[in-house]
């Protein structure tokens, strides 16, 4: 599923106009607030750990998607995911969410967590 989302996002990226917003300008603190206020965490989890709607929703912590691909998925959406139009989620907020996701701690080595090794 994750691979599918990534692939589709890359296709969308190719269709996007040049000059897409620079993700590095995002405000991670505001991104965290918006991530929750617009309900991204409903499917993807507050820690970007992933979840499920009618099928698995991918983990987004430290997402490997390039920013424009990420924004493309948000605007047009894939399968059952809600699409967030500019009026609902301005580009600035998208950049902030992206910055927040990049700021998340992401995965830890599973071997460091004893109870995951049963």
């Amino acid at each position: 599923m994750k691979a599918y989302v990534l692939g589709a996002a890359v296709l969308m990226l190719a269709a996007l106009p040049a000059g897409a917003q620079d993700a590095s300008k995002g405000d991670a603190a505001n991104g965290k607030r918006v991530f929750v206020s617009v309900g991204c965490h409903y499917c993807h989890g507050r820690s970007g750990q992933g979840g499920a709607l009618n099928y698995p929703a991918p983990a987004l912590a430290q997402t490997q998607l390039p920013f424009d691909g990420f924004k493309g998925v948000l605007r047009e959406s894939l399968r059952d995911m809600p699409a967030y139009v500019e009026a609902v989620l301005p580009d600035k907020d998208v950049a902030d969410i992206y910055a927040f996701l990049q700021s998340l701690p992401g995965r830890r080595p599973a071997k460091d967590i004893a109870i995951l090794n049963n």
Partner: protein
Amino acid sequence: MPQRRDDSPVIGRRNFLKGATLAGTAAAITASPPAKAMPAPPADTLKAALPGPRQIAAETQPPVKDPATQTTSGGDFMVDVFKTLDIDYLAMNCASSFRGLHEAVINYNNNKPEILTCPHEEIAVAMGHGYAKIEGKPLAFICHGVVGLQHATMAMYNAWCDRVPVYCMGGNIVEADKRMPGAEWVHSAVDIGALTRDFTKWDDQPTSLQHFADSAVRAYRVAMTPPMGPVLLSLDAELQENPIRDAETLRIPKLGKVVPPMGDSGALAEAAKLLVAAQNPVILCDRLARSPAGLASMIELAETLQCAVIDNVGRMNFPSRHPLNMSFRRGPVLGQADVILALEVNDVWGTLNQFSDRIVRSSRPVAKKDAKVITIGTREMLIKANYQDFARFPEVDLAITGDGQASLPALLEQVKRLVDDGRKSAFAERGKKLGAARLAMIEQAKSDATLGWDSSPITTARMCAEVYVQIKDEDWSLVGNSIRNTWPHRLWDIKKPYQWNGVSGGSGVGYNLPSSIGAALANKRHGRVTVAFGGDGDFMFVPGALWTAAHHKIPLLYVIQNNRAYHQEVMYLQAMAARHGRGIQNAHIGTTITDPNVDYATVARGFGVHGEGPITDPNELAPAIKRALAVVKRGEPALIDVVTDPR
């Protein structure tokens, strides 16, 4: 027609005669001709007719005795019938329309089947649902045939969809002249079975005790013959309560051995040929294994073929950590399949297609167009017109009608007969690759579980891992799960026949808690540690089930995944709002369970159940689970309220 109470007094007739006499007297008193009126009739026409011998006898002899006691009852005989069916429990919420049977159970047969007191009929049936999937046989359930049955319908529909036998009965008062004014009229119906006929296998309203015996045994056999399902008997109150009149002629028919239908041997041979010749065969399974034999056959077939297995987890079909278990890699596996064998899969189309819930709903196949699809199952043996639980029609190359589990040994034998050394070698190579992929999936699952490990609200992965580490060395049984919580099947070593028992079938909310209690009841006699996860929304439908667990001392560790919402609906509403570009700020209205937040541990304590929580700090989980497990191990239920991230 149901028997009349043979010792009931003939009060009606007696009063009628008295009334006639009084009327005659009154007529005589008013017989004086009025001053100016119509001409008076002849005086003799105003007198009552002269009494005949029967009337004289009725007037002069002592009144017919109105007996206050009886020595036998139809209910006693009904209990004798249940004894032959090996029914251990009778779940109910007490009601007058079956007071005859109720009294017979508790006094004539020393509370056997043991009565389970349930505060709602939906709870009683759902308990039977969970019980049957662990114990392999039904418990009995009885209710008011009209109002109680309406409460029970959702749970009966779940059992129907999940192909689970629940032996349902409803009290009724069939004869109109026997109904007391008031409640007995609104609680009676000509045909109570009409309400549930679309989702029961069979129903009947016996009109004599012999009829009851025949139908009671038939109902059991029908319920237990795959495809299994709920059945309903309407029990006339007169039949339950009145003395037995024909004891010397009553007999209880024998049940006999119930043998499930098997797939055609020629068709199974054809299926075996396709499977053995395939490069990438895949086995799909859903409501397949109902006993240890089914699980063993499934493992043997997969290992003989060394092929991928995708388990839709409708039953305990296949070990979660088996090297051939590709349930969490289904896309790529199905994309490469050239032969697909679907065993008791209800929704074959849904498994083989990817559906998109967008403005224009669309789908695309996930399997190759030329992949051969074989089905073995009983779906088409039990299909009705109205409710659409049969799912979309799948295109299939070979549809074998027969019970999946019963057909597996014959299929396996055919497969083994066809496997030569060349194929064995190819199979081994295939199995090796699948095994490597499985190991990678397990590592991926562990890695995924680390995301947000220390977060609050707690991740569902952390919640499941914390429970597993404390039960893994016990003889445990997982009997319930919250919606789309895949972590137990991703992280836990689920391999014994009773370590998983599927889901609701009809996705009717209010199933998980009572069905888990029913499954725990079945596990109790085996000394297993029963655990279940369940959503807060599901709990809110049937919290009273906890009282039943406490009252009957049913040990169960129930972990509430408390995301404070009917979360699937939050997401759907979010999707609707986003579709209109209106933002999702209002998606919580009508979908969340907040303001106030529910304190489930306190609710549990109110029902006499040990309660822990609400737990928001993941580090507090382990000690809470330990305390709760200690309660469960001493034979009582316990609840842990875990405040989690949505999914």
